[in-house]
């Protein structure tokens, strides 16, 4: 059984009036556990559609999406939410945290969605947060956190259910350079140490050095891109 994420000639069409818009055009990609792939491209190129399909938020019009060897392309909505809960960790654009939960509860609520919260879950959440340098902030609410801290909480939340794949959607959109580096390096580290298949959609070229591979999305087509020559590694 193949681990990680695999997409086989996935297409997505939208009907807009009499026109048929191709948002994704026969996209194929394979991301192994422990691999961190960046997808770059201009806005409107289909990056978000790509991420939505990979993350079981959207069904493709054609093609196969394999999460840990399981084809999710044609599953009903109910099972898709289960797949999202157990197999996918989302890191979304800045501050998509629940405003009335403190940092620890942000993580535990994910466990609550599956049922009961055990002491082991609490210990795991605390470990994740400590790992991301948030040990001191566990009882704080999102409004008391900086942008970088919020994104680190989002990373921890994405890892909470020990999913097979991590999907990051412009995780640095609202961060300054230093914090953006900090956040992406943390994602990269977690991906390596926890053996996750990770995809980050970004238009922030400064951060590509953290990724193992870079793909370019243009007009719904995905193509591999050589790492920028002489890119700085921290």
């Amino acid at each position: 059984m193949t681990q990680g994420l695999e997409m086989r000639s996935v297409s997505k069409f939208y009907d807009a009036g009499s026109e048929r818009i191709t948002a994704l055009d026969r996209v194929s990609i394979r991301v192994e556990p422990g691999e961190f792939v960046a997808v770059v491209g201009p806005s409107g190129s289909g990056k978000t559609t790509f991420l939505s399909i990979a993350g079981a938020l959207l069904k493709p019009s054609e093609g196969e999406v394999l999460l840990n060897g399981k084809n999710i392309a044609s599953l009903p909505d109910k099972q898709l939410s289960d797949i999202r809960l157990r197999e996918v960790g989302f890191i979304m654009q800045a501050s998509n945290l629940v405003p009335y939960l403190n940092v620890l509860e942000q993580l535990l609520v994910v466990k609550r969605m599956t049922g009961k919260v055990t002491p082991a879950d609490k210990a795991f959440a605390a470990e994740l947060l400590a790992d991301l340098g948030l040990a001191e902030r566990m009882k704080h609410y999102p409004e008391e956190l900086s942008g970088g801290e919020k994104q680190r909480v989002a990373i921890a939340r994405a890892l909470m259910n020990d999913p097979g794949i991590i999907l990051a959607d412009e995780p640095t959109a609202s961060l300054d350079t230093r914090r953006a580096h900090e956040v992406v390096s943390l994602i990269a580290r977690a991906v390596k140490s926890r053996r996750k298949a990770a995809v980050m959609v970004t238009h922030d070229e400064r951060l590509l050095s953290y990724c193992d591979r870079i793909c370019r999305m243009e007009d719904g087509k995905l193509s591999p891109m050589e790492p920028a020559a002489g890119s700085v590694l921290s």
Partner: protein
Amino acid sequence: MFLALKEMRHSKTRFVMIGIILVLVSWLVFILSGLGNGLAALAASTFKNMDADYVVFEKGSNASMGKSLLSGDLTAELLALPDVEAASPMGIIFGSAVRESGDPEEFKLDIALVGIEPGSFLEPAAAEGTGLDAGRPTHVLANESMKDEGFKPGDTFALDGTTEKLTIAGFVRDQTYNHIASVFIPIETWRKLAFAAPGSDKGLKDPVNAIMLQGKNIDPNAIAERLPGTETVTRAQAVQGISGYKEETGTIFMMLGFLFVISAFIVGVFFYVLTMQKSNQFGIMKAIGAKNGFLGKAVISQVFILSLASIAVGILLTCGTAAVLPKGMPFRLETSWVIVYSLVLLAIALLSSLVSVRTVVKIDPLKALGRVE
């Protein structure tokens, strides 16, 4: 429950504000129901507390005591009918009691004189003093409220406009008719008072207003067939026939009905707006795997907690109100009705929250990615 409580703790002000509205609504519901009960009791408790199942009136009287006149002889005929276990005549007139104390202000108290046969099933048990006795035709049983006006057992009062004097043999509880105190008197005495004017008895022998029957299986139609010129109704129908009773209770129930509708909209609209405001948040949670059930439960339990707390506060406030209301106010809170109205309010709140749940179900998790393509 977890999400619901966390959010309520975090945004106290908005939930307290809506809670206050719900408290006021439930408070008003309970006060109105207490007032409705009190008024209904005041209007008809003599009827309601009577141990009778059916009432026989004169045909065409619309179940109204005032319009009905029957011969007391019918009592024996009714007793002979199948399913009639007991029958006893009754009559009601209104009068004014004048205290025998040389009161310079000529104190008068409106009373309803209820004529019954001493010792019959219509005679209420005396809470104080003794009951009626056919051998003492001017000794009466009066409602307790007359005590508040200074009457005591053994007191004698005159009836305004007559030469008759009545003595209070004892007091009974919860006996009022048409909002005034009932005074039970032997039916012979009652006849003398009621038909003092010649011809007012229409020539009937031993005239009475109505005959009360006991017997669960009585068939009113059969009685109408056997005794033409009568109409038989249940006791509840007879209560409805008391003048002003329907109008009074109808007004209260209409207000209660409006309050229920209002509370449905308050809860429904508040949580709908709240849900719309949070649709992005719900989208995020759906994106990370929350099922509709999980989020729907959060909304419903929020409504449940809020309504339950508000209703509880409403009940406390109502009890407080009942304690400070003046004694003469017709306010009677019955536990059973408080429970019923609480459950109705709760059910209405939960039902109206379903609108919000539907909204939650419709939210697209793609919203979380910030731009739906």
